[in-house]
Each structure stands twice: as structure tokens, then as C-alpha cells.
């Protein structure tokens, strides 16, 4: 996962920020965050070097399948994230992995790059709490 450049599409900023930090711990980089279909489509056009994406199916009350189509057209791997346990995802997206919230960031890599997940040599994340003191927190 190290070095992967991720487009994060999620309309809850707090969730997006936490995910972004977690991904950073895993060595990936969130290069752009979008909260709406419009923003996501615009960022796809203007952000260079996106490797993959996380796509919340429901953005500001609208379904985000047009973003999924744009990602597929560009051949970019992505995962759906959703709050619905049985999301009514159209058949044409059957191959797209779905993560139900809340999920562990590690699941993203397993879903996006199953071939690499858990492979020997894959660096383990350095769990840390920025600007805090992990020793105190773990005590």
C-alpha cells in the first residue's frame, strides 16, 4: 500500500479526516477529498496520479454511481463504503468490494489489493498518536 495515492470520497469530514490519517499511517496518501458527486468528478479530472479511490455510495443524499462509472472508465480500483447493511447496488457493480461503516482501514487494502494484503515484506503500520504520548495513553 506504501505510496498509493488515494481519492477519498466521503461526505462526513470527521470520518474522512480520520480515514485519511489512518491511511497515512499505512503509508498511503490521500491526495484529494471530495464530499459530493460534483467535487469527486472534478477532482478525478484535475488530480494527477490517483491510484485508487474510496467511494461513499451516498453523498449528500445522492447516489454516487456516476463517480463509480468515471472510476471504472479510468480503470482505477475502488471500494464502495456505505452505512446500509444490504445496499441496493446495481448488478453492474457486483465486482466492486463493499465496506460497511464503520470499518477498519486495513480492510480497505485487503479489498483494493487482495494480492498484496498480508504478503510477506508488506510493512506493518506504525501505530502512533500524533502530538500525543502513546506510552501514557496505553498505560
Amino acid at each position: 500500500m506504501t505510496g498509493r495515492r488515494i481519492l477519498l470520497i466521503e461526505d462526513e469530514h470527521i470520518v474522512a479526516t480520520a480515514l485519511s490519517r489512518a491511511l497515512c499511517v499505512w503509508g498511503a496518501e490521500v491526495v484529494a477529498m471530495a464530499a459530493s458527486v460534483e467535487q469527486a468528478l472534478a477532482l478525478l479530472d484535475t488530480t494527477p496520479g490517483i491510484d485508487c479511490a474510496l467511494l461513499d455510495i451516498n453523498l449528500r443524499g445522492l447516489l454516487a454511481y456516476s463517480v463509480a462509472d468515471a472510476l471504472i472508465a479510468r480503470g482505477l480500483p475502488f471500494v464502495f463504503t456505505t452505512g446500509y447493511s444490504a445496499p441496493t447496488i446495481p448488478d453492474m457493480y457486483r465486482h466492486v468490494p463493499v465496506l460497511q461503516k464503520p470499518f477498519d482501514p486495513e480492510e480497505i487494502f485487503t479489498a483494493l489489493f487482495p494480492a498484496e494484503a498480508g504478503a510477506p515484506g508488506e510493512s506493518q503500520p506504525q501505530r502512533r498518536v500524533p502530538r500525543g504520548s502513546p506510552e501514557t495513553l496505553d498505560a
Partner: protein
Amino acid sequence: MADPSTLNDVHELRAAVDLIGLGRYRSDPLTQAIEWDDRLKAMWGLAPDAPVDLGVFLAGIHPEDRERVHAALGQSVDPDGDGVCDIEYRVVGVNGDGDRWVATRGKTVFEAGRVVSFHGVVFDISERKRAEHSNMILIAELEHRTRNLLAVVDALAEQTLASCETLADFAVPFRQRLATLSRVQGLLSRGETSPVMIGELVELELRALGAEPDGHRIVVDGPEVALPPRSVQILALGLHELATNARKYGALGTPNGTLSVRWNVTSDERQRHLALRWEEDGIASRRAVPIDTDRVGLGRTLIEKSIPFQLDAETRLEIAHDAVRCDVRVALERSDTLPTWGALG
């Protein structure tokens, strides 16, 4: 003649049929004659004197259900079966513009293994179907909200922790943020017929910290404005951060401090905006370390980043040694502020 003072099956059945509003039918497979009562004809959009045949019957059924109904009828005239036809289906009526669900139960009468007649009743179950459907949506929506809320709580915990020096510092701000989320759920559970007003949200967050608007030291003032449902949670969190900061470092923590929260609605051609100003004065005597400028600053992030990111909004937060001012401008009523109701995904 039956004794009029005793129970009589025919009269009581007639009453039951009328009470429930059942439509009745009878058909003769030999002559293909079909007889419907007025109530059943009305369900198919037919006048009381309109003739009925198999074609009319099938034409009034929703095209997607037609085959299924036909098959069920076929089965019920099988002499080896029980002769019962028990099925629910949609009726569009002969004009094709109806929107109705019916349940029917019919029974074939056999004599010596031959069909002699088919009788039954039809019950309009549209209301039940609509209730079932809206229940299904409600449950899915509830789950969606719950899971999203858990994701928010998860992220809040993570980020509150990140801004704490010790675990002891974590408990109070985290619990307070949870309490804000909890209050928001209470407001949102009223449903969309009773939208959340900006005034009540401001007062709710102030009162939660023991600050009672008194029209003098604490002024809350502005017109009634309904908030887009999607904006309520993040605005509440932002207001909570301002209020808790004011209590720790600002106007709510000093006798000379004043707080005013005022708003109005501005409009241009196509868009209405809520413009709110939070203003604290007279706080010079307090230790001026507002909005956790000494730490990672979840409060500041919520106001400066989260609100503009997820709403169509602009915010500005200014902190001076003797005053705090926060401006929030949020778009009201836009197509993308429609609630997620029913948009399952």
C-alpha cells in the same frame, strides 16, 4: 324461512363483507361467465354496469403480476389440488392508472372431479403494503444513520484522542461531543415534518453547558430558520465547540464576558443563505487560549474545515485576546440538501 331472531350465516357474512369492504366474484368455467359486485368493479376502475370477462380481469392487473396471477388461477382449477387461490398482486385498473395492491382468496368448487364454479373475495391491501414499504425504508434509513453515526463516533474518538496529552484529558471532551451527537439524534428523530430550527439548536448547545440566554449577557437572536436536515449534526458539533471553548476560555467563563449569537437570512437570485455570527467580548481577563490553539484543535478543524467541506458553507473564525468572533454562512434549500430519505445506497 329462518327465524329472524337467531343468527343467520348469510346476513352475518354479508355484514362482514361490508365491514371489511371485500369485493366479491363468481365465475362459471363452463360458460366463462364472470360476475363481479360493484365494489370489485370499482377496484378495476369499472362502472357498476360494465361487463366483465377474463380479458377485462387480466387487463386491470399490473403487467408484471399478470402471469403469476394467471398461473395461480390455473392451479386452483386443478382437480388434484385443494382448489384454493390465495394470492396478492397489484391492480392498475382497466385505464392503467391505478395504484393498488389486493389480496384475493378464491375457491374452486368441484363435483365429481369437474370444476363447476369458482367463488372468492378481493381485499384492498394498498394501505398495508404502503406501510410495509415505508417501514422497510425506515429500517434501512435507521440502520444507515446508525452506522454512519458509529463511523462519526469512531472518528471523533480517534481525533479527540489525538488532541489529548493524557488519557485523563480525553474523557470530558469526548463525552461532551457524544452528548452533542445524542442531542442531535433527539432533534432529528422528530422527522422531517418538524425541521430543526437554528434558534433551538443554538439554545440547546448553550443550555447543555449551563448557559441560559438572558437577553443581556447572553443574547440569542434571529428569525426562525429551518435547517436542512443534513446540516444539523455538523452545525451542532461546531456550536458545541464554540460553546465549550467559551466556557473554558471565553465569555461563558467570566462574569464580564458577553456572548451574542445572531443570525439572519440573505437571498440572491436562486439561493437563500443563513448567516450566523457568534461573538464574545469582555474576555480579556480570561486566559486567552481559545479553541484549543495549543493542541491539534478538533474544534477549530470542525468549524474551519468540516462545515465548509460537507455543507455548502463558508466559515471564518477570529480569535483575539479579548474577543472571539465566528461567522458561518450556510446555503439553505438546494437540491443537494434534500434528505437521504429513500435514497438507498
